[in-house]
């Protein structure tokens, strides 16, 4: 392939552009009106507008994406994650337009992307699956019946996609009706598919997943597990690999199951099998992600392989550049998702302009992001600004390095999850490696206390800075003086611009 269209935005579009350029492949970016100045547009070889800000008018418009690919002469299309990446209709439209779809075969997407079919596929492959509904929930009555048969609490989940969207936990029958309605509405908005199914709610699970790569020549490779139990609102916040909870022999079993599903479904490309693991180390198939995942860099850092590059190679019909089936690792890696959200205030999204940007760097640090100074963070899309990844020889070294890097990262003008991530990384429970998917809710008070304990002398300092700033910035009080100030400002602007 000589030219690839990336049907996405933000950090993942930037991430894919980087690998394409390293492979000597030209890139085609697409952008909505509010993304004209976004990094993926600036970095790409080519860029085409595809509509207005709401993603239904741009990044979810199959027709416009195909048209941009045709106009630009792109040979392949990479969907990234989110948006249309797990939509088999989109994949089919791409293939019908004689473009190479950088993703799994459409059949595999249908059978695995659809959460209900995925559970059936897993069962056929003899992979353990948790109790739940065998088909979609058509009405409340059916839901009530299934829920009481498997026992509350239960989980409502979207058939059409993941990421916590359209997901609701239901503790008792009285909550079922409104939760079902809300879940269906969210699922519809996020995936254009409002179907919901029911799953048994496991009390203290860890979220463990197996990333794999399969080529069209029958080669499969499964990587060391990723632990993704630090979640808020069912969305991952911090991921690491390897997991402190999973022995090599347990990993091997989970990896074998992943490969069984790949074989059963005729899967080709990159994918991830997600499991829930209970306290007794029983694991259950949770779902399959038929696309590149947000947290894929964690695996790249410990196995030394560019997963996007493998995706492109495989889509071109090439063999995997790996010759083993079970891929080991070197050291430890951890990822903190930097969202435009205030972690201590219910992860409320923050919008605004990035006034200044100082990013961490140095040995073992990687920051995959899609932001730049002066950029406007709008409420239209997912608030993920970037992913800070640290690598180290041991888990302890890696956590220390991550903390250093988080403290070095200054994204000025919006609130981010950096302070929250620092609190998590500094948390003793987290440091022991003994945590599950309830970590954030259970440790929230402790995390908040950590933050407040670190606000000693700095309170007064903040007052001093506000005082200095106010005093320094104040326009002079009289009209006469103000004119002078204006003139000198004009001069300083001129100087900045190089005019004087």
């Amino acid at each position, binding site marked *: 392939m000589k030219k690839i269209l990336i049907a996405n935005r933000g950090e993942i579009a930037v991430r894919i552009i980087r690998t394409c350029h390293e492979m000597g492949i030209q890139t085609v970016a697409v952008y909505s009106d509010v993304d004209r100045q976004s990094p993926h547009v600036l970095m790409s070889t080519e860029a085409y507008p595809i509509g207005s800000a709401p993603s239904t008018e741009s990044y979810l418009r199959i027709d416009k994406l195909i048209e941009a690919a045709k106009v630009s002469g792109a040979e392949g299309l990479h969907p990234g994650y989110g948006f249309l990446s797990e939509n088999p209709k989109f994949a089919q439209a791409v293939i019908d337009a004689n473009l190479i779809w950088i993703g799994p075969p459409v059949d595999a997407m249908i059978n695995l992307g659809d959460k209900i079919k995925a559970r059936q596929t897993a069962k056929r492959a003899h992979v353990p699956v948790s109790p739940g509904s065998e088909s979609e929930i058509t009405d409340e009555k059916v839901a009530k019946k299934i829920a009481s048969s498997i026992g509350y609490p239960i989980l409502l989940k979207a058939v059409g996609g993941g990421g916590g969207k359209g997901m609701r936990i239901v503790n008792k029958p009285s909550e079922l009706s409104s939760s079902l309605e809300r879940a269906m*509405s969210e699922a519809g908005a996020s995936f254009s598919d409002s179907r919901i199914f029911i799953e048994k709610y496991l009390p203290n699970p860890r979220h463990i997943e197996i990333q794999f790569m399969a080529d069209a020549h029958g080669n499969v490779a499964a990587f060391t597990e990723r632990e993704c139990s630090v979640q808020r609102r069912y969305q991952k916040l911090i991921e690491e690999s390897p997991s402190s909870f999973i022995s090599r022999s347990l990993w091997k079993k989970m990896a074998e199951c992943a490969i069984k599903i790949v074989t059963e479904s005729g899967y080709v490309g990159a994918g991830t099998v997600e499991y829930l693991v209970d306290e007794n180390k029983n694991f259950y198939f949770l779902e399959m992600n038929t696309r590149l995942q947000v947290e894929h860099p964690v695996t790249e850092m410990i196995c030394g392989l560019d997963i996007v590059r493998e995706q492109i190679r495989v889509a071109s019909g090439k063999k995997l550049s790996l010759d083993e089936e079970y891929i080991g690792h070197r050291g430890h890696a951890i990822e903190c998702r930097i969202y435009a959200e205030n972690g201590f205030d219910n992860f409320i*999204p923050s919008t605004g302009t990035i006034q*200044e940007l100082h990013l961490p760097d140095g040995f073992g640090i990687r920051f995959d992001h899609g932001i730049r100074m002066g950029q406007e963070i709008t*409420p239209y899309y*997912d608030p993920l600004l970037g992913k800070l990844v640290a690598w180290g020889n041991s888990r302890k070294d890696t956590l220390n390095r991550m903390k250093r890097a988080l403290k070095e990262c200054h994204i000025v003008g919006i*609130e981010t999850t950096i302070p929250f991530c620092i609190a998590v990384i500094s948390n003793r429970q987290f440091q022991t490696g003994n945590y599950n998917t309830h970590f954030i809710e259970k440790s929230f008070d402790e995390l908040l206390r950590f933050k407040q304990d*670190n606000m000693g002398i700095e309170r007064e300092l903040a007052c001093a*800075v506000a*005082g200095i700033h106010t005093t320094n910035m104040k326009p002079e009080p009289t009209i006469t003086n103000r004119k002078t100030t204006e003139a000198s400002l004009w001069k300083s602007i001129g100087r900045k611009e190089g005019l004087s």
Partner: protein
Amino acid sequence: MKLQAIIENQPIDCQLSLSGNEVIFEVDNNRQSINFVRLTPFSYSLIINGKSYYVTITKHFEGYNITIDQNVFFVKIKDENELLLEKFGMSDSVTVSNGEVRAPIPGLVSSIAVVPGQSVQKGEILLVLEAMKMENDIDSPSTGCIKEVFVSQGQSVEKNCLLIQLELNENERG
């Protein structure tokens, strides 16, 4: 110069005397000499007794968001004139619960649960605001009656946009 800093709603009286890049900062008879430079419009470097601090500052409502070592502080400053006005009861800083329901975040009004004239309980859902793909319930801040709904379903709203005006029950007024 005398100033009052209101940090996270707590007032701190302080005195500031600037000369060049040095400032004497005094709180509760505790004097500190601070060496400061403004690095960019949004950042300062401070050195106090050898300790180095990198500080960022951005305007936030009527005050500033100040970040030191990844801790964010919201600080408002009142100078001598403002303090004097306040002394004479001319301050405008008193906030009243006036029944206005404003958008806490920018987003899209995905559904409206109430109509004018309807009575609502405190905590009852008024509308759902969709932002960054999540649906956020906007609950009623107090018990009362819906006086006016200013937005419609599907409408995009800015942060702080007036969404709904409540008629408060007498005992709910702030």
